[in-house]
């Protein structure tokens, strides 16, 4: 019997011009978003690959110079783009994808598309994630709101219920019929997207992407199921189709626009982050004056000098067996690292607390749960950004230490022309980044997964209950 209901709902929908046109529009948008994402991904990937190679070549062929100058010359670290990032850009446009690793400074990430975007673009960037998180739910609402209410208005519901059909079964049949109609739209889009990916991405990245793509797809399916179920529930109990539509658009706006916006503001209020300028100023201040505030650079240099003179039992820096400048620079570097650690740890803790607010707010709007899951599977969430940033910073510190120690151990105090060349630059291994594995990512998505599943189950229960309460 369920199959009969599903088939009838599906047939009716396929013959409905409204379904055909709205599905065609959504399909076009989804494919367009995927195509743009794909083009962006292949382009950026090629650029990254080229830039990665060229930054290494630049490093190797920077010529003979003092290692400290080389540290200033620096290298760029590029965050690898996962194939699935074409579906969901996540926080990438805001946090950037490349970092310049140089002496003395832990740099902010660069190349943030959001910086170059106009205000209007920020509202309307058409990505796969936008279509999946906002437009498809809208399509579901538009297709589903009259499911029961218009049958009641047209009188078919009386006849249907006079047959002795269990109302909950009708609801399940309608839900599955709508799911089947949506799959006509989503399955080809998914297949096309996967095919495009499989053709363009390298095999290693693709192999890691399939399980993530599957989890992402399941997440979106659960999210769609929520919208189908809640639409049917409202349609079953609403006094009229018009009422059902207005109520469901309310749900859609609340979920997709009101809560996400409000939560960003609330998270910022609860856990304020310093402005970029203020953040830089604090770091500069601490580097200058010491973490405790009364330990200036000059004092530290003087202390270091006294310590070294005592250690090597000499009376002037010229007589030291090591190059004082190299040691001093490395000391300064390590002091700077402590300052960076202090400030960046605090900053990232604040971001993490903001993220927790977003995560919890999924109790009010399932879109926040699916968004978090989607970004994490696409490799574009903040956790994976921070993971990369830490690895890049680690590399920067190793590089600087290597340059400073080379000076400390090999530069004579009076040798102002001390240089090193390609042979030495090559002893610094290239930056290799291993992205976190799926288990690492999933362990950070437990709450979002649980809330998404919770929303789906709750909405299905509500659907069955509302159908049971339905009057003709």
């Amino acid at each position, binding site marked *: *019997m369920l199959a*009969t*209901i599903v088939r*009838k709902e599906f*047939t*009716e929908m396929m*013959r*409905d011009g409204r379904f055909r046109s709205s599905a065609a529009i959504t399909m076009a948008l989804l494919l367009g978003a995927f195509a743009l994402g794909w083009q962006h991904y292949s382009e950026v990937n090629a650029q990254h690959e080229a830039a990665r190679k060229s930054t290494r070549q630049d490093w190797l062929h920077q010529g003979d110079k003092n290692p400290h100058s080389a540290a200033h010359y620096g290298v760029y670290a590029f965050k690898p783009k996962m194939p699935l990032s074409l579906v969901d850009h996540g926080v990438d446009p805001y946090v950037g994808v490349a970092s310049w690793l140089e002496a003395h400074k832990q740099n902010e990430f660069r190349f943030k598309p959001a910086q170059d975007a106009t205000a209007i673009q920020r509202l309307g960037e058409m990505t796969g994630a936008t279509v999946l998180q906002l437009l498809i739910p809208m399509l579901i609402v538009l297709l589903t709101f009259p499911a029961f209410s218009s049958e009641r208005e*047209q*009188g*078919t519901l*009386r*006849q*249907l*219920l*006079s*047959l*002795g*059909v*269990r109302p909950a079964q009708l609801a399940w049949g309608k839900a599955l019929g709508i799911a089947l109609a949506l799959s006509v739209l989503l399955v080809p889009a998914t297949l096309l997207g996967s095919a495009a990916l499989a053709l363009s991405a390298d095999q290693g990245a693709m192999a890691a992407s399939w399980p993530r793509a599957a989890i992402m797809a399941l997440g979106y399916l659960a999210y769609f199921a929520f919208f189908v179920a809640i639409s049917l529930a409202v349609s079953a109990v609403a006094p009229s189709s018009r009422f059902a539509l207005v109520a469901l658009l309310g749900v859609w706006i609340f979920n997709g626009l009101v809560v996400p916006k409000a939560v960003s503001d609330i998270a910022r209020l609860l856990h304020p982050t310093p402005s970029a300028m203020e953040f830089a100023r604090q770091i500069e201040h601490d580097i200058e004056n010491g973490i405790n505030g009364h330990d200036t650079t000059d004092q530290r240099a003087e202390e270091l000098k006294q310590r070294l003179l005592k250690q090597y039992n000499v009376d002037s820096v010229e007589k030291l067996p090591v190059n004082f400048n190299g040691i001093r620079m490395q000391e300064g570097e390590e002091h700077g690292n402590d300052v960076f650690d202090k400030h960046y740890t605090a900053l990232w803790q604040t971001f993490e607390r903001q993220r927790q607010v977003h995560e919890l707010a999924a109790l009010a709007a399932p879109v926040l749960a699916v968004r978090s899951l989607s970004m994490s599977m696409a490799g574009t969430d903040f956790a994976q950004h921070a993971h990369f940033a830490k690895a890049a910073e680690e590399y920067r510190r190793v590089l600087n230490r290597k340059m400073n120690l080379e000076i400390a151990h090999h530069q004579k105090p009076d040798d102002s022309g001390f240089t090193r060349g390609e042979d030495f630059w090559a002893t610094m291994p290239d930056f290799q980044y291993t992205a976190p594995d799926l288990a690492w990512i999933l362990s950070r998505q437990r709450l979002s997964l649980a809330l998404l599943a919770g929303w789906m189950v709750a909405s299905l229960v509500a659907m069955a209950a509302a159908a049971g309460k339905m*009057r*003709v």
Partner: protein
Amino acid sequence: MLEAQNLSKTYSGTPALHPLSLKIEPGEVYCLLGANGAGKTTTINLFLNFIEPTSGTALVNGLDVVQQPLESKRRLAYIPEQVMLYRNLTGLENLEYFTALGSTETFSKGQLLAFLDEAGLPAGAAEKRVSTYSKGMRQKVGIAIASAKGAKALLLDEPTSGLDPKASNEFSALLKRLSDGGAAILMATHDLFRAKETGTRVGIMKHGRMMAELRTEEFGHADLERVYLEHMHD
């Protein structure tokens, strides 16, 4: 078999149906007569469990419709004044759908077409979408749905209103066949002539109260009209 035991319905203090007791045996066609608002549709809605009785019970084949809402409905068929169908489906698809949901039997396409043909749907219309149908054609699909269900109890709410005399006549013939097959039929109607022709008993209702019950075989058509008008006279 359809049975009402002291069945009544009150809407916020206003009685829509005063306690009614009624028993319709297999093979009987009971016609409810009365003006609009007399309680005919309320009675039918109570048998369908679409509204809850204020007191009393409605039984379909001995099953209490409130206690066993699904099982009791499986034993009855309902034809409203306007049979409403899915516009984007053909007549055949509508019949197939309602039959699949309402009947335990499964029918072949040939059998379903035979039901439509028997109900008088013009040949060739079965495969057309219902949005092109006239009221009479939709009514005939409704009849086909009812006869395919093979129900032992029929609830008809002014099923012939708006039908032309020929269609109305065909409908009566069909009712006769169903009642000969052992169905208990309760039909609300305004059509005194049709009531006399097809009904075995007639109940005249007014303001939610049963005023008189007659056996049609004991009265001529003119008598029925006279009795009816007497009761309608305030």
